[in-house]
């Protein structure tokens, strides 16, 4: 155990001794080491001005991903490589092709968003040439620009590949360097809060048994996964967290295992890492995950965090509940498995004891007679929180609905099934008439709220209509989706 955080920066090992465990990477860059190229536009992960790229050792290669420095706690960088806009300067001091392309296409006006775009584009650049339009839009969804209207930036995403594909990091060198700072034991930091003088502690265990032990010994600790919620407690609510247990280094929590009839996703698996697999099983679920936050958020945020936070507007729970997913929780040596549905007890209340953590979620594979659809409604397509999120799993026997699981987010204090609507359909023929009856029955399932995202009337009406939409999609070839995703449309 040592209180020193080590990461690679500009080809050197950067060491920080006993940093404040919840100091953000952005503040560290801007105010401690004067790397002011990275900007703050919101301090809540929503604008992308703070985008940096983080490299992580994955076997014999390094995976580079764009993340939001504003909500990342400094110690979570331990063992990783950090690239900021300043890192792109070539040895001769010239601009990187990504930067050159943005200059050529007039991709900056006020320039404040630009370093963030540079880093998002850089992550895309590392993926290799010829990105599709959808891929570019995904890569940039987490970067807001108020000046340009985005066109020139999209042009730069093409142009950058024409300006030189040789400016890639040398993988072998990076792998060796990262191997050199790899930790095989818990990182433990103890620091004193400058504000209150209280002790602040940080644990980053590297295996699940140590995690279980540390969690049990520190039942009041805050689990930190991707920090896309927890980060905001610090930057927005100015909370002081006394003890933080970081889950991101726990190997077992990042595993995905496939069995004959299910996939088991570790709680620490990021959205990005789960997306492809889930899209393969349930294309709609894949699309739903693609609509969660932005590339940066999906690179940090975890499925476990999305469940554990108990939010009524998290996007994966409705889909997982509709699919009949199970949740595995662990406390000390005890492991238990429950229906995910039962995890959500009430607003702010889940079936989880102190010191207990979510270990994994078990998602059944598609059954032959069962169809799945999911939808997300929000003011903006990308990087927005759902007003309503809906998922439908419908098993048919001939024309008759054998089983129906309709789960909604944004309609109640927890993610919740529409029991009345379900029973109105089960045992009935799958017809427009019966679906309309189920839509009516849904009025008894929910009494949604009005807030800044939507009114209760919209929530109810659109929730009902989404059932109709699923019906139309499952029974006809009528067009029902705005031409959003060319790739999806061509499937």
């Amino acid at each position: 155990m040592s209180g020193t955080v080590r990461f690679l920066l500009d080809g050197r090992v950067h060491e920080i001794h006993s940093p404040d465990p919840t100091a953000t990477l952005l503040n560290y860059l801007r105010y401690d080491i004067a790397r002011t190229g990275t900007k703050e536009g919101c301090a809540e992960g929503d604008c992308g001005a703070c985008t940096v790229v983080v490299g992580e050792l994955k076997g014999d290669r390094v995976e580079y991903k764009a993340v939001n420095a504003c909500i990342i706690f400094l110690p979570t960088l331990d063992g990783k490589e950090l690239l900021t806009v300043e890192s792109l300067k070539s040895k001769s001091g010239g601009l990187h092709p990504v930067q050159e392309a943005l200059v050529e296409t007039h991709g900056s006006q006020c320039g404040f968003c630009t370093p963030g775009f540079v880093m998002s584009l850089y992550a895309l650049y590392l993926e290799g040439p010829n990105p599709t339009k959808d891929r570019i839009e995904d890569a940039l969804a987490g970067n807001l620009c108020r000046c340009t209207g985005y066109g020139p930036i999209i042009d730069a995403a093409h142009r950058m590949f024409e300006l030189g594909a040789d400016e890639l990091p040398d993988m072998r060198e990076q792998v060796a360097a990262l191997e050199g700072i790899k930790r095989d034991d818990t990182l433990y930091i103890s620091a004193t809060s400058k504000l209150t003088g209280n002790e602040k502690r940080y644990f980053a265990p590297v295996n699940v048994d140590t995690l279980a032990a540390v969690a049990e010994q520190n039942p009041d600790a805050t689990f930190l996964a991707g920090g896309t919620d927890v980060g905001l407690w610090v930057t927005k609510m100015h909370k002081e967290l006394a003890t933080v247990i970081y889950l991101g280094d726990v190997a077992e929590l990042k595993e995905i295992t496939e069995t004959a009839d299910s996939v088991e996703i570790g709680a620490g698996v990021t959205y990005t890492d789960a997306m492809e697999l889930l899209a393969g099983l349930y294309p709609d679920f894949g699309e739903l995950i693609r609509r969660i936050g932005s590339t940066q958020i999906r690179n940090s945020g975890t499925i476990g965090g999305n469940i554990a936070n108990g939010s009524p507007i998290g996007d994966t729970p409705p889909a997982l509940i509709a699919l009949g997913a199970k949740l595995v929780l662990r406390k000390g040596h005890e492991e238990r498995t429950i229906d995910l549905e039962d995890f959500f007890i009430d607003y702010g209340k889940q079936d989880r004891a102190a010191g207990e953590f979510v270990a994994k979620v078990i998602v059944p594979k598609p059954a032959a007679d069962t169809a799945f659809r999911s939808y997300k409604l929000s003011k903006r397509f990308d990087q927005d929180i759902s007003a309503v999120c809906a998922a439908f799993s419908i098993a048919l026997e001939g024309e008759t609905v054998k089983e129906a699981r309709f789960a909604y987010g944004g309609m109640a204090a927890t993610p919740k099934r529409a029991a009345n609507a379900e029973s109105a359909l089960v045992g009935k023929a799958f017809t427009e008439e019966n679906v309309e009856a189920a839509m009516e029955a849904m009025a008894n399932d929910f009494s949604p709220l009005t807030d800044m995202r939507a009114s209760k009337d919209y929530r109810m009406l659109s929730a009902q209509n989404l059932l109709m939409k699923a019906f139309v999609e499952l029974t006809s070839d009528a067009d029902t989706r705005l031409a959003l995703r060319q790739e999806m449309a061509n499937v």
Partner: protein
Amino acid sequence: MSNPSLSEIKGAVHKDLRHDSAHKHVAGTAVYIDDVAEPKNMLHMYVAMSEKAHAEITEMDLSAVRAAQGVAVVLTADDIPGHNDVSPFAGDDPLFSTGLVEYIGQPIFAVAANSLEEAIAAAKLAKVSYDEKPHYLNIDEAEAVDLKIEDSQLMAQGEAEKALSASKNRLQGSFYIGGQDHFYLEGQIALATPQEDGDVHVLSSTQHPSEVQHLVAHVLGRPTNAVTIEVRRMGGGFGGKETHPAMFAAMSSLAAVKTQRPVKLRLDRDDDMVMTGKRHDFKYSYDVGYDDDGQITGIEIEMASRCGRSTDLSPAINDRAMFHADNCYFLSDVAIKSHRYKTHTVSNTAFRGFGGPQGMIGIERVIEDVAREIGKDPLDVRMLNLYGEGERDTTPYGMKVEDNVAAEIMETLAETSEYRKRRDEIRAFNANSKYLKKGISITPVKFGISFTTTHLNQAGALVHIYADGSVHLNHGGTEMGQGLFTKVAQVVAEEFQIDVTRVKITATTTAKVPNTSATAASSGSDLNGMAALDAARKIKARLIDFAAEKYSCPKDRITFRNNKVYIENKEMAFNELTQEAYLGRVSMSSTGFYKTPKIKYDRASHKGRPFYYFCYGAAVSEVMIDTLTGENKVLRTDILHEAGRSLNPVIDIGQIEGGFIQGMGWLTTEELVFDDAGRLRTHAPSTYKVPACSDRPDELNIELWNKGRNVEATIHRSKAVGEPPFMLANAVFMALVDAVASVGDYKVPVKMDAPATPEEVLMAVADVKKRA
């Protein structure tokens, strides 16, 4: 211009030239105020805000705040040596509340501490009690109690009432247009450094350094010359950094002078959105008379806006809404009434278009409604109502439209975008598509250029040439990304015929050019370009005089061309001449000045010529809506816009695209929500949704009108471009109205407000279905 080599310099006018800071933007080396190395000993400031929309503060106990760790000073109204006011002119914007609070977010005190964390933690220790009073938050509530910031205004021509009753057909309608937050990426910030004698130097992210200077001096109780304001660049402004920065500059200056330590005040995004004003939301209603062809024969328009708690710039903003109530259409008999309501919400302020967009979208809605009533293509109704040439050319405020190119632009765009063909295809598509519906619309823009407050139309510049021939350029305009500095540098380079790389662009500072106007009203390059040209010409004339005398050559035989000076048959490099001029004791420094000619306006009667000229443009948008969810998407937009003889086409196109997308956001995803207590619920990008990358139309074609040339003698016959393109987005909203109308087979009027969020669209669809 007959000599072809004239265009050989780098950065000549009318040529594409990239933004002067582009290479620094991408490298992260362009310095914004928060990037400046923090001076030793610097304090961080945090502003505490009112928790109530309307109340009297009965007790404010700050003893614990003052005693808290790290706190250097706590400021309240009592600490102001000068005037407790940071308003642009009305005198009703206290820096700190003196007891009365009139919106949630109003500053009540501020703390400067060694760290921001300490300042925030200290502020939380305040004990504040309020005696609440009734609050009126929106237009309807203020209207009910007749709470206004000034008297209602009337602008009229002809006899609207009589014409209306004589009209063959008549139609009434109303709708609501939401406000908009600027969402500049760089929030409000000021860094004040104390100077000798109680003076202060302030780095302020502002579009209006002179006003910030005056107000800081005013608050400090010092003459203007005690304060220097400097700004190299802003991370976006859009009008939001016109009046508000004074507040933050004044607070930090006050603390800096009191503590004799530098003080930084940088607002967090949430505080910025809660504390600073936005675009006014409007209620618009009309009563229109028209003939069977759709020609408007009389109209009464009533507009009401939410001004917020103080006057700010609301009178001029609401005036501009009236000025644009006609857009491109001749209204022979018209009465425009405008009500400016005071509400217990943040004081609304300038925002790109300055009220123009709210006024303009109304008449476009009228035209759509009239067209639907008579079953005509709205384009035909638009063409029919356009201003004429030499006739039907007087605006409601009595100014003649003399540069009208709207018809030509509309016709050209309708042609190149295949508007009519696509409209037919869309109708066919809708007939066969049960759930997804498309809509299309083409709308024009005519936008008046000049500050409507006449005296503001002035600008100054300062140009030095050093002996080595390098040029230092300074003017009163500010750079917020719009490329103003680049354009003005091109003007100067062109005049001296030297490469633009030899012209050093420098930070705007009140120490170099005094008494400037805000960089606003799209006037930046018109005014500052002319002022810089004036300065350059003065120096050039001195150089010519010097050369003529030295080489005994007639002045008209001396020309500047492509980095060289030709003195009859003699050729010398530009810097050789400047070196000689220096030795010959010639002053190579000059101020320049400009005031816009021809304009004159009488606000009492709302008559005159408030504008030097108009800008024109048009857009066609095609959209799709999902009638089950209300989700919507812009599929394609074609824009034809005129920027006169553009000073820098690529920069102008950037303004057009950015303006259009910002306008699209205003009308679609950007929704401001206040709760019943008056608390803004959409105060960060998590809840307030400006367009993201994928919201850009799948296809976006933008053309500058190649025949563009300003009929007025503006800087190189160019036109302003900052604001007008914003209103091109009206086409998006009208196309959405068209798509919703398809649900009722284009027979039922559409009740839809802006912004057209999925909710708004779905509810409009449901309403049309009910009435179909």
